[in-house]
C-alpha cells in the first residue's frame, strides 16, 4: 500500500487531476501562469482537445489510480472551438456526475467547470477551491481496493 492512503493527518496532500480542453481552459491555465497567479501544486493538468473528448472512463481510471478529485474544464457553452463539443461534454458529464454519486462517491470529488482562455484568474480560483474542498473531504478511499490490486500488479 502506498503511503498516501495511510496518511490522514494534517500533512496529507490530495491529488487533483484536471482535464482541460486545449482551446479554452488549458489556455486559461497558461494565462494564470503568465499572469503569475498562484494555485496549489496538488493540481496536475492533462490536455485534451475538447471536453467532448472526455470519456467518463478517464475519470474513473484517475480515481482508481488514486486521484482524490477530478476536474474537467472546457469552453463556456456556446464558445466551443468545435461548435458543439462542450454541449455533448456537458450533457454526458452531468449525467455521469449523478451516476457517480449514485455509485456511492462523494459527488464533490468530480466537478465540471467552464473556463475561457481569458479567465486565468478563474482558472487559479477553481483549482484553489477544488483542492481545498478535496482536502476537507480527505483521501479517496472508495476505490482503494481496486488500487491495491493495481499497485501489487505493477510491482
Amino acid at each position: 500500500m502506498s503511503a498516501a492512503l495511510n496518511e490522514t493527518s494534517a500533512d496529507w496532500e490530495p491529488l487533483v487531476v484536471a482535464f482541460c480542453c486545449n482551446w479554452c481552459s488549458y489556455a486559461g491555465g497558461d494565462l494564470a501562469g503568465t499572469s503569475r497567479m498562484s494555485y496549489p501544486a496538488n493540481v496536475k493538468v492533462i490536455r485534451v482537445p475538447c471536453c467532448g473528448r472526455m470519456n467518463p472512463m478517464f475519470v474513473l481510471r484517475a480515481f482508481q489510480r488514486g486521484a482524490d478529485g477530478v476536474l474537467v474544464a472546457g469552453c463556456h457553452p456556446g464558445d466551443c472551438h468545435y461548435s458543439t463539443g462542450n454541449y455533448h461534454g456537458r450533457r454526458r458529464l452531468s449525467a455521469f456526475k449523478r451516476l457517480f454519486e449514485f455509485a456511492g462517491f462523494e459527488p464533490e470529488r468530480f466537478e465540471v467547470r467552464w473556463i475561457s482562455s481569458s479567465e486565468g484568474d478563474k482558472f487559479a480560483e477553481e483549482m484553489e477551491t477544488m483542492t481545498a474542498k478535496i482536502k476537507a473531504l480527505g483521501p479517496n478511499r472508495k476505490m482503494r481496493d481496486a488500487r491495491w490490486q493495481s499497485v501489487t500488479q505493477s510491482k
Partner: protein
Amino acid sequence: MPRIGIFICHCGSNIAGTVDIEKSIEAARGFPGVVHVDEYRYLCSELGQDLIKKAIEEHNLDRVVVGTCSPRMHEVTFRKAVTEAGLNPYLLEVANIREHCSWVHKDIEKATPKAIALLRAAAAKAALNDPLVAPSVEVEKRALVIGGGIAGIQAALDIAEAGYIVDVVEREPSIGGRMAQLEKTFPTLDCSACILTPKMVEVAQHPNVSLLTYSEVEEVKGFVGQFDVKIKQKARYVDPVKCTGCGICYEKCPAKTPSEFEMGLAKRKAIYVPFPQAVPNIPVIDRDACLYFRKGRCQICAQECPPQAIDYEQQDQIIERRYGAIIVATGFDQMNPSHYGEYGYGQHPDILTGLEFERLFNASGPTGGKVVRLSDGKPPKKVVFIQCVGSRDKARGMNYCSKICCMYTAKQAILLKEKVPDAKSYVFYIDVRTAGKGYEEFQRRAAEEYDVAYLRGQVGKIFPESDHLMVHGVDSLSGKTIEIKADMVVLAVASVARADAPEVGRLVGINSDSYNFFNEAHPKLKPVETHTAGIFIAGACQAPKDIPETVAQASAAAVKVVGLLSKDMLQGEACTAEVNQAECSGCLYCEAVCPYSAISPVEIEERYHGGTLKRTVVEVNPTLCHGCGSCTVVCRSGTINLKGFSNEQILAEVDAICLQR
C-alpha cells in the same frame, strides 16, 4: 521498446528558479523507455534545438519529450526541430512545466515533484505516440464575398487586384448596400454616391470579379481551401444580355409598391432598379407587385421593351461553385423603434429614423432633395434629434453604443442648416461620442457654426399639437424640463444585426455574440478571422462601425484571403479520428455527434462462414475531421480513436500522474 529522450529547459530562471532541475533529471532517468536526459538554459534557442537534434542522432532516439513552456507556445518550434533531425513531428511531446508549474507555484519543494509528474506523464504519452501525417488540401484559387455593400466591394476589389478570381453575392438587385442610401458622409461631407459609384463600377468591370446580384447563398459545405457553395440566383424576369438599361420598362409599368431603398417613403414600380446608379443597371420584376404575375394580364413592360429583354418564364438558377475562402460582409439593419411608445414612431409622418431623414436630402430621394415635412410639404424650421434610441439601453434596446449616430446626427444638422437656412436643430443626447480623425472638430462645427443646440437629457413624450410635434424632455444638466414645438423629430435608432444574421451564421458555420453580430476569432489580434478557418468577416455584420473602419476591415479580410489563396496546398489536421471498420457495429452514433459531417456510413463486404456478408460501418474523412474526439466517446464498440489523443495515450497520462499514490 521506445527510445525516449527528455530535455528539460531552465528558461533562464523562469523554470529553474522554482523547479530543481537536477532532481528532475535524476527522476527522468528512471522513467520507462527513457535512454537519454539532458537540460539546457534556453531550449528554444538555436543552440538548444541543435542539442536535441544531435542527441536524436547520437542516441538513436525515436521519441522526444521537452519540459518547457506551454505547448501552445513552442510545440511548433520543437516539432520543427525534431523533423529536421529526421523524426516525425508528432513523436514529440511537451511537458508544460512553466505556465502550469514553475510560474504558478512558489515552493520549490512542491513544484519539483509536480514537474516530475508532468514529465512522467509526457514520457508515458510519448511512448505511445505514432508518426502522423497531416492530409494536404488543395486550395481552390477563388474567393466568395457575401454582401455587396462597401465592405464587400472593397474586399472584392483588393482580392481581384491581387490577381485572384472573386465572386460577390448580393441579395438585392444592385450592389451598393447601406452606403448607397446615404447623401453625404462625415466628417468631410463627401457626396456618398460620388465616392461609392466609381467603386461599384470598378468592381463590376474588373476582369477578376463576377457579380451575382439578386442572389443568395443557399448552402456552404466543405472546409478551408475547398468550400462547396450553392448560390441561388433569383429570376429577374429580365434577360441581362439583351437589356440595355434604357429604363422604358419602369417608366411605363403601371403597378406601384413601397420602395425598400427609400425606406418606404416613396413608391417604386413592380419592374424596377432600386436606385438610378444601380449596378448592374438591369431591372428586376417584383412578382408580388407585378400585375401580370398577380392577375395574369398587363405585360406592358414586355410590349414596350425595345430589345425584348423581358422574360416571364425565367427560373431561379442554382450555381454550384468551389471557393478557397469566404468573406462574410452582410452589413446591418436599423432597429425599428415602434416599441418606444413615447417617441410615437410610425404614428406621425414627421417622426423619422436617421436613415429615413437621410433620404430627404437626396436629389433622387422621395422629396427630390427638398427637406420638407412629409405631412404638409413645408420645410421644417425646428428639428429635434434624439440620440441613443435603442442604443445604450439595457431595459428596452441594446447595451452597446451604435457608434455612428452622434456623427451622422451632427452631419444631418449641418446639411439641414444648408438646405433650410432658418432651421434650428436640437439634439437630445446622453454623451456625445466623436472618437475618430476629424470627428470631434466636425461635431464642434455643428454646435458652434451651425447653431445646433446640444441638450444633455432625454425625451419623455412626443405628441402632435395642431401642426406641430410637442417634444417634452428634461435637460439633465440644468434639471429643467424642456418643451420644444418641433416640426420634425429624427430618431437615431440603434444599428442592429441583420434579422437573418443567425441563419447566415449557421449557413457558413460562424458564431455570433448575444446581439447576433458575428464573432471575430480574437477581439484584438484576429479581428477579421472567425473560428472557422477560411471564413472571414468585414464591416457592420461584426459590430456597428463607420465607413472608414468598414473599408479598413474589408481590406484586412482581403489580405487574409489573398494570403490563403497564394498557397497551393494547405496542411490539414493530423490528429483526426480513425475507425477500425472490422470492429465497427454500425450504430452510427458517431455520425450524429460529429460537428463537421466527417463521418459517414459506408457498406462493406465481409467474408462470413464461407459466404460474404454486407454490412454498414462508418468511415472518417480525415480532411473534414477537426479532431474534437466527440465520436470516440459515443462509440459503442470503442473502436473509433483519436490520433494524437488516443484513449491509450490519455490513460497512460492518468496512470503516470497518479503513480505517486
